[in-house]
């Protein structure tokens, strides 16, 4: 019987280690202000910021700057508190970037710049139907 208990204790110990590292690996959704605070405190890990792209009254997205070789770009993003921040992204502009309704960026401040390593776009029409009918 004894060995069974030893095995059980080892398995439970491993499982608890997993739970602890899970809590450590989880990222958080924050605003730009909180993200800046975190990076000033020396927190180096990537976080998620949810927001949208600034638009003119006529609905045109502004603040996008593309590199001449098209391989990277900078853009401005408003977080959920409405704070504007320039974001650097070392990937080409996704084709449906300006059509997105919501943008989630994963990354961190490096100095006073926000460098994104991943961008998730939520496009309004994906997977949900809001058809426009003309009679």
């Amino acid at each position, binding site marked *: *019987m*004894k*060995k*069974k208990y030893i*095995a059980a204790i080892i*398995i439970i110990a*491993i*499982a608890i280690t*997993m*739970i602890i*590292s*899970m809590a450590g*690996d*989880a*990222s*958080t*959704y924050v605003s730009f202000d909180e993200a800046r605070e975190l990076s000033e405190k020396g927190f180096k*890990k*990537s*976080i*998620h910021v949810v927001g949208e792209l600034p638009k003119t009254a006529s609905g045109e997205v502004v603040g996008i700057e593309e*590199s*001449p*070789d*098209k*391989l*990277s770009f*900078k853009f401005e993003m408003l977080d959920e508190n409405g704070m504007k921040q320039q974001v*650097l992204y*070392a*990937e*080409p*502009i*996704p*084709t*449906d970037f300006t*059509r997105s309704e919501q943008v*989630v960026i*994963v990354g961190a401040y*490096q100095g006073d*710049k926000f*460098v994104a*390593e*991943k961008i*998730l776009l*939520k*496009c*309004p*029409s*994906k*997977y*949900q*139907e809001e*058809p426009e*009918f003309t*009679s």
Partner: protein
Amino acid sequence: MIHYFEGQLGHAFAIIAFVSSLLAAYAFFKGRNQDAKWTAFGAKIFYVHSFAILGIIGTLFYLITNHYFEYHYVFSHSSKILPVYYQISCFWEGQEGSFLLWMFWNAVLGIILINTNKFWKAPVMLIMSLTQVFLASMILGVVIFEVKLGSSPFMLLREVIDAPIFKTNPNFIPEDGNGLNPLLQNYWMVIHPPTLFLGFATTVIPFAYCIGGLIIGKNKEWIRPALPWAQFSAMILGVGILMGAYWAYETLNFGGYWNWDPVENAIYIPWLVLVAAIHVMIAYKKSGSALKLSMILVVASFILVLYATFLTRSGILGNSSVHSFTDLGLSGQLLIYLLVFITLSVFFITKRWREIPATKEETSTYSREFWIFMGASVLCLMAFQVLIYTSMPVYNQIANFFGFDLNLAPPTDIYDAYSLPQMILAIFLAILSGTGQFFWWKKMDRKKLKAELTTPFIISLVISGLVIVIAKITNPYYLILLVTCVYSITANAKIFIGVAKSNIKLSGGSITHIGVALMLVGILFSSGYSTILSTNYTSMVWSTEFPEEVNRDNLLLFINEPRQMKEYSMIYRGIRKETREDGYVDQNELTLTPDPLKVIKNGTDTLTLISPENSFFEVEYHTKEGKEFTLFPRVQINQAMDMIVYSPDIKRKLSADMYTHVRTFPDPDQEPDWSEPKEIKVEIGDQFFINDYVATLERMEPIAEIDGTPLNQEDVAVKAVIEVQGEYKNYLAEPIFVIRNREFVGRIDDQVDDLAFRISIQNILPQENAVLLAYQTTQKDWIIMEAVKKPWINLLWIGTFLLVIGFVVAIRRRYLEFVKMRDKGVEA
């Protein structure tokens, strides 16, 4: 005209399916203790139920093939131009249809169970019918006591969507549907979901035997009939998962076959637990130990399938997954489904717990049970590790429910979160699957073990040493994983040879283990050593703002301009369309017709497009010896859904896959920026430059019609024929100059897309025998692409085949055992 009848018929079938499953469950419950009358009645009702399901599917398919866009399901998931084989895919794009698919398989499996079981018929079918009750309720779409039960696929568009047009014209029917999500327009998407759902459906069978057995007090006898089904389920589920991985590899543009997406994880978890369950069940059959563990694992695998269903369909994953379904408001119903089956299982397991004797004797380290138990533990730990990470959105919801904000986001480093821990556990798995086999087949002690293990141990060290040196492996984890996998392969090969000599029918285990080890090696190389060929090749520094460690993985290619990338010279040739008759055809040679499927090539031949949504980028790989191969990565533009989807193209070589996909290209909807027009005066026969290309004004020709429309008598038109030498071929530009009614001047320019210019005739100067041309230039057509080399990915697919073969051998053996005992009448 709205077709009301078909929808009502389908809805009626849905209600019959629900009621009949309820009735069947009741009849089988009554018949559970070998009551032949009730059991036979239950079986009849179950046939009615199955017929009703066929009715629902038939009706829905009828609506789809006849393009009845007044129905919401048809409108949202199909369109007129969709080929028939993709019309089938419409079923699983929507939640309701995928529930239908699941029910369909359950019905098929139920009929098989009715016809292959005697003793177990009623208790097993009781559980089967009960799952059908819950599944049927998901597509019921009726309101009972103000609670909406299920979401019917037979809802009219106007009942679902609140568009103003329905107020003015309730009988409005849209001309065309939204079409199928471009991601699903792939042949794998025709076969992958049915396979996966067959896997889903089969997990209920071992569960049904287990709970059915506990209900009637046959606490241990359920294992024999359940075992072959558990193996079948693990095989189908495994194949389904890998098909999904292959689909992702071929279709999605994240660059791999596995992304640790919550939807992928949700199925991987029960699969691992099911495999663990199979091992423990086999151990029970051999030595009578670990019955309780078998029960727990069999039940857990099915509960985890229900949990996966809940995760992917309740909308709880929200932002964290690319391919979860839209929330249909079924989350409450799904949660009840999950909780009912958890309660049922916990109740019956605790009820019978005391009746099951505990194993008395101490398990020795040299016993096969010990090794099996270790293997099952590692499998369960792997499942647990993925489970706790994937459930993060659930923690957020639970926290919200108790009134505080947890705010957990998915881990940003996928390697640390999933790949590394899974790899470490896989190392143990490889060691155990190699060593455990020896304990399985022979009684072992220290001496014998040494004798058995020495040979495979030495062989594997030699082989992995060679591979490590050749492949230059330095990462310690990769090193250990490789050595242990090679060990597992050699050890199992030794076992296989030994077993095959005496009875090949028993060799399923060793074949499967070799397959798994090969898969692990394939994953190790193709993922761990996948190299981005296109990285950092345009080392132009645009902005010093970027930190240095940011990798630039992509390559910009302008049309017809070669660019070096590692050992390859890359050339982008332009956009192609895929035609039935001529294969890939240059888009510039095609003109559209009113029929979206028909195009005209060079003004003469009519060709048929395979899919009008698809465009392909022709990309050539050249080496010093010349052109090596051409790839056609794809972009799909779905106007109705406003989606742009890129898919890779893959050159498959024996030792590596060359994976190429386009990241972005100029938006076809956007008019390019043209330069200021430049005027140039030329005489016939003159050579001149346009956008750095040599051009010759060959001749001027009077013409009698423009674009097929004849000119009026008063009109005069002339075209200039200009030949332009491109990098690889010559192009003709033919601008037109018209004088209408002797006074109005019209200029029709001609555009050469490949050379990025357009030219027009400004004026004709008869005195000077010359024409005044004007041209404008723009940016050349371009793509940004990524090229990745994935070495030895074929080992993953070969391993998968071996896994399947091994399972087939094992299933056959265990099923024949069951049949033999059943026919002897000693089923329980």
